[in-house]
């Protein structure tokens, strides 16, 4: 077998063509197949002790689950931040890796039945509730949850994707700033970051109503609808969902569709824990379209944007707080 080919396969960098060739070889020769399993096993075993996990934290998560079997499960996408941290630390000089890992755990405070979940910068959290409801919490977002009688009540700051297990007499509602979204058997995404003048609610499946804080129905959504609520004007507009945009963040991608550079950077700062400053204000309105994997480093993203948008940037390291990237 071609040794370079097998290296490509093992490092997960084979092209579709290479994969096709490789799997054809395996299917044609039992010997090659078994040989691949052995090499893969060697590959697996050659880095056994190096993946860093914080055992104490992991044990606490486990113990929490064991002692409160009915409580929501939470996981965190640590892998993504690790990859970022390992590289970006060198480039941006932010803190230490261990600091990153410890600070990104979503915590549950159990006061008077209210549970709070926080996904810190650079992590996506998944919360699984005992009733089967699943919530993805985007970087920098917070969700609190409590029950009042049969009502399941939550409040969101930031962005989250909900797969609600609809229970007929036990409605699930999400309060986001000035509006409340009430599920009627539903999968939906809400984006309500503080500082943004909009709240976007996109309905994937089922039915959902949007209510004002006073409880009046403002809109009834059908699958494929995206309701854009303007906080200042207090008006709501229904537009079609932009495909991929909602699912992308859960898969660790930024999808940018004809967005202004300033808006793109405000999104990037939620993920990378850096701040942006424009010295050349004209650049703010430059529009860009593309997809960026979040595992890419901030430096690489900047280089990519720079290529098309024609700006320069420099990084100012801060002793305390987030580093600053200046665009000029």
């Amino acid at each position, binding site marked *: 077998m071609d040794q370079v080919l097998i*290296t490509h396969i093992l*490092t997960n960098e084979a092209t579709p063509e290479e994969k096709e060739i490789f799997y054809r070889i395996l299917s044609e020769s039992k010997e090659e197949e078994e040989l691949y399993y052995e*090499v893969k096993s*060697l590959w697996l075993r050659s880095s056994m002790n190096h993946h860093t996990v914080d055992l104490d934290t992991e044990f606490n998560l486990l113990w929490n689950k064991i002692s409160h079997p009915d409580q929501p499960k939470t996981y965190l*996408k640590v892998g993504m931040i690790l990859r970022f941290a390992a590289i970006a630390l060198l480039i941006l000089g932010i803190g230490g890796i261990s600091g990153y890992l410890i600070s990104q755990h979503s915590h549950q405070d159990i006061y008077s039945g209210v549970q709070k979940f926080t996904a810190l910068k650079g992590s996506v959290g998944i919360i699984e509730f005992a009733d089967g409801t699943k919530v993805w919490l985007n970087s920098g977002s917070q969700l609190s949850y409590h029950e009042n009688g049969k009502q399941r009540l939550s409040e969101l700051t930031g962005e989250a994707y909900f797969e609600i297990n609809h229970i007929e007499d036990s409605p699930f509602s999400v309060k986001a700033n000035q509006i409340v979204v009430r599920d009627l058997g539903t999968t939906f995404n809400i984006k309500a970051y503080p500082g943004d003048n909009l709240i976007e609610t996109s309905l994937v499946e089922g039915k959902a109503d949007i209510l004002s804080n006073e409880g009046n129905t403002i809109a009834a959504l059908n699958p494929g609808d995206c309701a854009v609520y303007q906080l200042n004007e207090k008006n709501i507009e229904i537009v079609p969902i932009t495909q991929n945009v909602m699912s992308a963040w859960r898969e660790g991608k930024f999808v940018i569709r004809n967005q202004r550079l300033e808006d793109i950077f405000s999104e990037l700062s939620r993920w990378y824990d850096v701040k942006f400053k424009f010295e050349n204000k004209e650049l703010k309105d430059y529009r860009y379209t593309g997809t960026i994997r979040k595992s890419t480093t901030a430096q690489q993203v900047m280089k990519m944007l720079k290529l098309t948008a024609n700006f320069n940037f420099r990084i100012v390291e801060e002793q305390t707080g987030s580093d600053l990237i200046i665009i000029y």
Partner: protein
Amino acid sequence: MKDNIQLFNDEKQDFKEVFRMYFQPLCHLSRHYLEDEFEAKGVVQDAFVKLWEVRSKLSADSNLGNFLFTLVKNNCLNILKRRQIILKHHEKIRAKELHYQYESLERIGDDFLEFNELKEKIELAVKNLPEHCRIVFEMSRNEELKNREIAEKLGVTQKTVEAHLTKALKILRKELKDYLPMIVVINEILN
């Protein structure tokens, strides 16, 4: 080596001890095959929850590592199977990929968790690789960098990185041929 810990006099403390011993290697295994940090951790977490639930039914000489390994392996196999089922028909390559992932995991024996001679030999063999080879290999395996990223960091071409990795693999196979029976066959075919 403390393998068969008597469960569980000071239950939580002993449980934590077992956790410390097996959590990391089990995560390594599930990550390798599931390629998804969430799911991988979830599977391992579930195995420990199960262990806790059945603790009273375990005898003093139960092999806990084996118990956990079996749960994790089977759950990973089930997940791979499930992924294959929900594939769309045009994703033929992905289906193949999952098939070989499944078959490969199926062959991982419960010696995986044992701190045996093979593990030491592998570590030693990696340590003894030619310097450049070892640096590239460790960046790839331990830091999980992409070939392109390694190339950038070291200021060499991606081809050079690949060549080092290929060479590392070749040397490792040769060094370990007495420990991995099939490797002998590999070398015979290759050389």
